[in-house]
C-alpha cells in the first residue's frame, strides 16, 4: 500500500499518522515528548510501524510542530511546515466547510479562521499557560483527579462554579476557595473547563469572528466538558473530529502529499528505522559577537569523532543555522 507519513512534535506531545492514498488514517500514535523530541520520534515510528497491518510504501513525509526542523532532519521529511498551516489543513480535511478551528494542546493553543477553504486569520498562544491544556493538567493534579476523568465528571455537573481569574495562579486560589466553601467537585471541574474556555475566547480569540461550522481539536478536545463549555459560551454547535488529537500530524502528511504530487522527486524518508541511528546532541558557544549564543547541534554517529552534523540551531543570527538543503529545494 502507498501512503504518507505525518509527524507533529511539540514540547508536550508527539503524534504520528500514516495516511493511505485516499487520505484516510490507517495508523496513528499519540505520545508524550517528555523533552526528548528525537527519542519520541524514534519510538513513535517504531510503534507506528507495528500498528500497520500491511507494509506501507511511504511516498512523502511531513513534519510540523515546534520541533519540526529537527524532526525533518532526523526522519528525512519532504515538507516541513508550521503547525498553524498543518492544523488548518487537517481541519478542512475533516470538515471541508469549516470556518473556525479551535485548537488546544498541551503546549499551546490556536484559533484559525477559514473562508472558502483557506485560512484568513489566526492567533496562537504560546506564552500564557492559562489558555492551554497545561492549565487543566495542573488543576487536575491539585484536585487529585486524573485528567482523563475530567470530561466525564464535568458532564455530570448541572452548572459550573464561577472560577475567577484571567490567570492560572488566580484561578487556582479561587478553585481552592470554592473547594473549601463546599462547592461540589463536579461543578468545580466544569467551572475549570469554563475558565479555560473564557480565557481562550477573551484572549486568543478576541476580535475574531467565531463562525460555524466550528471544529475543536487538539489533545484537550478529549475532554467532553470542554466541548460543552465551548458550546455554551459560543451558543453554537462544536464538532470534534474523529482524530482530534493527531490533527497536526494529519495536516503535515496532507501537505507532504501536495508537495510530492507536483514534483518527480522521490521521498527523503529514511525509513521507519531511522530509529536505529544514534544521534549525538552537543552544544558550543559562539564567540563571533557579543550575543554569545549557545549553538546546539545534532550529529549522526558515523564513526568519526564529531559525526555527520545534521542540524544546528540556537543562534540569534543564522551564522550557524543548518537546515537540510535537500528539503528546502523540494
Amino acid at each position, binding site marked *: 500500500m502507498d501512503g504518507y507519513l505525518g509527524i507533529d512534535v511539540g514540547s508536550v506531545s508527539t503524534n504520528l499518522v500514516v495516511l493511505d492514498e485516499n487520505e484516510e488514517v490507517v495508523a496513528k500514535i499519540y505520545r508524550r515528548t517528555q523533552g526528548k523530541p528525537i527519542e519520541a520520534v524514534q519510538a513513535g515510528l517504531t510503534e507506528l510501524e507495528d500498528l500497520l497491518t500491511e507494509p506501507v510504501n511511504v511516498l512523502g513525509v511531513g513534519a510540523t510542530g*515546534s520541533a519540526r526542523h529537527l524532526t525533518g532532519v532526523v526522519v528525512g521529511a519532504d515538507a516541513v511546515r*508550521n503547525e*498553524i498551516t498543518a492544523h488548518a489543513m487537517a481541519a478542512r480535511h475533516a470538515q471541508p466547510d469549516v470556518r473556525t478551528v479551535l485548537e488546544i494542546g498541551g503546549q499551546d493553543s490556536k484559533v484559525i479562521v477559514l473562508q472558502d477553504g483557506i485560512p484568513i486569520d489566526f492567533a496562537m498562544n*504560546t506564552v500564557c499557560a492559562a489558555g492551554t491544556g497545561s492549565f487543566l493538567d495542573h488543576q487536575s493534579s491539585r484536585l487529585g483527579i486524573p485528567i482523563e476523568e475530567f470530561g466525564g465528571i464535568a458532564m455530570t455537573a448541572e452548572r459550573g462554579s464561577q472560577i475567577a481569574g484571567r490567570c492560572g495562579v488566580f484561578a487556582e486560589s479561587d478553585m481552592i476557595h470554592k473547594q473549601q466553601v463546599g462547592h461540589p467537585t463536579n461543578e468545580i471541574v466544569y467551572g475549570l473547563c469554563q475558565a479555560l474556555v473564557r480565557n481562550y475566547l477573551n484572549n486568543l480569540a478576541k476580535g475574531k469572528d467565531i463562525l460555524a461550522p466550528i471544529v475543536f481539536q487538539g489533545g484537550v478536545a478529549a475532554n467532553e466538558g470542554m466541548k460543552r463549555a465551548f458550546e455554551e459560551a459560543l451558543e453554537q454547535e462544536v464538532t470534534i473530529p474523529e482524530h482530534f488529537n493527531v490533527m497536526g500530524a494529519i495536516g503535515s502528511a496532507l501537505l507532504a502529499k501536495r*508537495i510530492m504530487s507536483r514534483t518527480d522527486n522521490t521521498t527523503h524518508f529514511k525509513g521507519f528505522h531511522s530509529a536505529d541511528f544514534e544521534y549525538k546532541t552537543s552544544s558550543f558557544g559562539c564567540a563571533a559577537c*557579543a550575543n554569545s549564543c549557545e549553538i546546539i547541534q545534532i550529529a549522526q554517529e558515523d564513526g568519526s569523532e564529531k559525526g555527520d552534523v545534521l542540524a544546528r540551531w540556537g543562534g540569534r*543570527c543564522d551564522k550557524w543555522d543548518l537546515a537540510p538543503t535537500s528539503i528546502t529545494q523540494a
Partner: protein
Amino acid sequence: MAKPSERVITIPRMGTLQLMLEDMFARLDVKYIMPPPSTAKTLEVGVRHSPEFSCLPLKVTLGNFIEAIEAGADTCLMAGGCGPCRFGYYAQVQKEITKDLGYDVDWIVLEPPKKGFISFLRTFKKMAPHRSIRYIWRQVLISFEKARHYDSIEKRLLHNRAYELEVGASEKAYTEAIDILRPAVSKEEIAELAEVALKHMDESVAMDKTKDVLKVGIVGEFFMLLEPVVNFDIEKWLGERGVMVDRAVYTTDWIAPSLANQVGGLSKEEVSKYADKYLSHTVGGDGQQTIAHTVLYVEEGFDGIVHLMPFTCMPETIAKSILPKVSKDLDIPLLTLVVDEQTGKAGFITRLEAMLDMMWARRAAKAGHDDWIPAGAGTH
C-alpha cells in the same frame, strides 16, 4: 562631568540614526562614541536596570547608553518628545537610572522643534559650543538630507531583496552603497553619490524581476520597526523568502514627520485621510499612523500587513484593537506581533511562516486554484 568642549557624546541605536549622527558629529567636530550594535546582552542590561513595566524601546536604548558609557562616553544625547505617549519621559527616566547606577554623565535632551525652535537650536549649540548657531543649523540640514538618502537606500534593499538570485547579495550591495555615499560632504556630492549608490543597489545584484513575490507592509511602533534586535530582523527573514517588504517609517521620517520628502512616512494630512474612517484622532505614539499605513498598503495592492508592537505599548494597543475591523473591511491578511524581552524567536517565526502560507493560499485562490504552498517550497 565633562567640560563642554571635551564631551564624548553617545546616542541610542536605531535604524540609520547612527549613520546620520556620525555624519553630523563629524561636521560639527563633536567627539562621540557609538554604542556597540544591540545584542541580546544589550537587552539584558537594559531590562535589568529598567522599571519592569516600562516600554521595550526604553529598555533597549538604556542598554545602549550603559554599553556606550562603559566604552567611554560621558554625554548621552536622547530625543525628548511631547504628547500623551511615554516616549517623552524616556530621557528623564534613563537619566535617573544612570545616576542611580553611579555613572557621572551629562544628558542632552533634544526636544522636537515644535516645542520651541530656539531651544532646539540651543541644544545643538550645547554639543558644539565652538560653532556658530548659523553654521550648526546649515550642517544639520545637510546632514539630514544625506540621511534621507541613507534611508532611501535601505528602502531599496527591502524592495530588492525578494528578487535576488543569490541569498545575501542585496545586503552586500547595501553595505557597499552606504560606503559610496558616506564620504559625500557638499549638497551636490550628496545628490550625486546617492544616485550612484542607488544604481549600485539595482545593478550590482543579479535579480529575477519576473519572480512571483508577495508584498508585505510592516506597520507599528517606530522603534520596533527600526531596530533589528527587537524584531528578529524580520525584513531580512521575509526578504530571503521572496517577500518584498515595505516599512511604514524610516529613521528620518520619524525624526521629522512634518517635513516633505518622506521616505516611507506620511504627512499629517495623509494620516488623517487614510486613518480617519477608523481612527480620527491621534492616540499618541504611532497608533494613528499604523492604521493609515495599513489602509494605504491595501490601496497599493499589498498581500498582507505585519503589525509590530512592544508589549504594553498604549498607542499600538489601541491600533491593535481597531486593526481587525480594518483587516475585515478591506479583506487583507494581518498579523499583529507583540514583543517583549521574553519573546522567543521560534514562536515569532512560526507565526510569520503561517502568515506567508495564508497569503500564498489567498493568491492561489484568487487565481482559481487551491494551493497552500508557494511554488518551489518544501520548507521555510
